[in-house]
């Protein structure tokens, strides 16, 4: 994602009006959720991976409006903590439609998950396997294997996942402990540039599962291909169907009776949420104009720190541009959203729009300076 930031100067009058109206009605800063975009993303992904059950990675944006919209579409949920399960329970979503994917758990967490009704758990080592022994009559286990991926923006294979060479051994031990490992899972990393890693992982898992199944009495039949489906931070028009075509082909070579799962987070929610912030102050320094916004990297833009995302920005004004800096509202000097960008002269009260801001944005916001959160509003919502 190193290829810089997209900045859009100016907006068609209709679009500008819509942003201004939202701020007039709800104040600033905002995160504006467009349910139709989420629905479109879900549809696109399920159409392109028709044999894969989708479990939305709640961590990407644990928001009740988002979860409810996906629930109504029939999407499942990938949960990783008691807090996430608690939220789904409040929304009356059955645990039967969820999988618990955190490889490292306290006993309390396992019990909470079982009470909630999540019976699929992920492990990647023998200690975790043993933790599930008391619940072996109830659970189904996925063994997470690790495939490192240099080109993913966020490599998730370093922290979790067992070595492919250790998988068979862990499955054997599980069998002796009376635990059933029903399949494998992997997560090649988030925001992948292409699907080569997915394909490679699918092929390796296929081979591994076939091999292991020969020597264990219960066949392995579930493959969870994780997340990694990209958001379009360059606004370049990523075609998810082309991205997924090789994945679909690789999955097509698996036995027809295998259960296929995926845990998309970013792809589903990123484009469905737009940030609106307001210029609250200005300052001229060394020939650069500093604009202080009412949201920043401790808030909605936290993904620029934690998730290494660079969101496309937009100002509504047109005109001659000059070097500018967009800074957040906290006292910390790290709280800078964008440096060295060319913007037209902005005034106090002008809006700055952040696109593709649905995933790992509000999810990682902090309470620093006790500034108010960006308000989450639903577009087209009359309630």
């Amino acid at each position, binding site marked *: 994602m190193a290829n810089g930031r997209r900045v859009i100067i100016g907006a068609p009058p209709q679009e500008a009006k819509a942003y201004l109206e939202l701020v007039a009605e709800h104040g600033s800063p905002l995160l504006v959720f467009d349910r139709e975009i989420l629905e479109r993303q879900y549809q696109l992904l399920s159409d392109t991976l028709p044999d894969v059950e989708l479990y939305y990675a709640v961590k990407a944006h644990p928001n009740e409006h988002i979860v409810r919209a996906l629930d109504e579409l029939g999407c499942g949920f990938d949960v990783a903590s008691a807090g996430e399960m608690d939220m789904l329970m409040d929304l009356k979503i059955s645990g039967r439609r969820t999988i618990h994917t955190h490889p490292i758990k306290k006993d309390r967490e396992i019990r909470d998950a079982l009470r909630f009704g999540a019976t699929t758990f992920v492990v990647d080592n023998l200690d975790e396997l043993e933790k599930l022994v008391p619940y072996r009559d*109830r659970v189904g286990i996925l063994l997470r294997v690790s495939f490192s991926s240099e080109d993913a923006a966020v490599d998730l294979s370093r922290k979790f996942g067992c070595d492919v060479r250790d998988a068979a051994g862990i499955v054997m031990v599980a069998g002796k402990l009376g635990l059933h490992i029903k399949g494998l899972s992997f997560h090649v990393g988030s925001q992948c540039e292409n699907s080569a890693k997915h394909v490679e992982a699918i092929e390796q898992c296929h081979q591994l599962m076939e091999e292991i199944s020969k020597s264990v009495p219960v066949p392995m039949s579930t493959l969870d291909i994780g997340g990694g489906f990209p958001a379009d931070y360059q606004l370049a028009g990523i075609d998810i169907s082309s991205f997924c075509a090789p994945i679909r082909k690789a999955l097509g070579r698996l036995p027809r009776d295998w259960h296929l799962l995926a845990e998309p987070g970013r792809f589903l929610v990123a484009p469905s949420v737009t940030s609106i912030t307001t210029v609250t102050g200005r300052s001229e320094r060394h020939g650069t104009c500093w604009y202080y916004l009412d949201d920043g990297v401790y808030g909605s833009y936290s993904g620029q720190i934690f998730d290494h995302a660079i969101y496309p920005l937009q100002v509504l004004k047109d005109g001659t541009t000059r070097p500018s800096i967009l800074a957040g509202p906290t006292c910390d000097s790290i709280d800078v959203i964008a440096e060295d960008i060319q913007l037209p002269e902005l005034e106090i009260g002008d809006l700055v729009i952040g696109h593709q801001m649905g995933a790992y944005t509000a999810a990682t916001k902090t309470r620093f300076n006790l500034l108010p959160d960006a308000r989450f509003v639903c577009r087209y919502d009359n309630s």
Partner: protein
Amino acid sequence: MKHFKETLYDAVCQEFRIDKLYFENRTKHQHLMIFHNARLGRVMTLDGIVQTTEADEFIYHEMLAHVPLFSHGRAQRVLIIGGGDGAMLREVLRHPVEQVTLVEIDKAVIDIAKKHLPDHSAGAFEDARTNLTIADGLEYVSDTDEKFDVIICDSTDPIGPGEVLFSEEFYTQAKRCLAPGGILVTQNGVPFFQLDELKVTARRMAPHFVDATFYCAPVPTYYGGFMAFSWGTDDTRLRQTDMATLHGRYDEAGIKTRYYNPEIHRASFALPQYILDALSGTS
């Protein structure tokens, strides 16, 4: 939601059509749902697990109440732990007992069951012999000075608020609360799917009772064949109560039952081989 899918096991699950949803919410202690199903009548679930249905509740409640009560023969003071739907209370009150104490941790279950599952309690909470306490079952048996002839544990499964009722400490304290010749019975899951639960209970109860065993009844919506009920007492003769005595007590009580009868009573202590093997440690 148009269907209820039970969340007990990963590999298999029973599914009920929801024909009318009466209640769904989180109480202070658990997730509670009551709905109507055309075949089963009203169904109550807690934390995604079937607790009782109008169609088959008689099997469960008759067996957990009448087996210890007719075995005992003179029970005056009975303690029910759990059983917030009131059906266990209803069955126990059909016997000429002096007092029945019901200890339920979740008052919401009682209130909501009274409203949406009224035939379960059928007025039992209003009986003058009923003594209702909202408390944690383990704390109650640990603190009380009362003695009971029969203690019935009508709990949820061992994960959740019912957890402490499967602890060794609970069996210790329950034993302490039993009058001489008293009996403890508990619901202990469906061994076909929950064999570990059976083994753990057997291991924890054994040190506290001279006669610790299980008896069985098949409750259709406790999916998986026989449900096991644990049985603990120091009077080894109670389990052997002969047919004539049982018949005498049953006839005298004049209780009309739909599953229980003295023959079933005796037969229910006969355990299938897979259960015996599990208990003897050969499986």
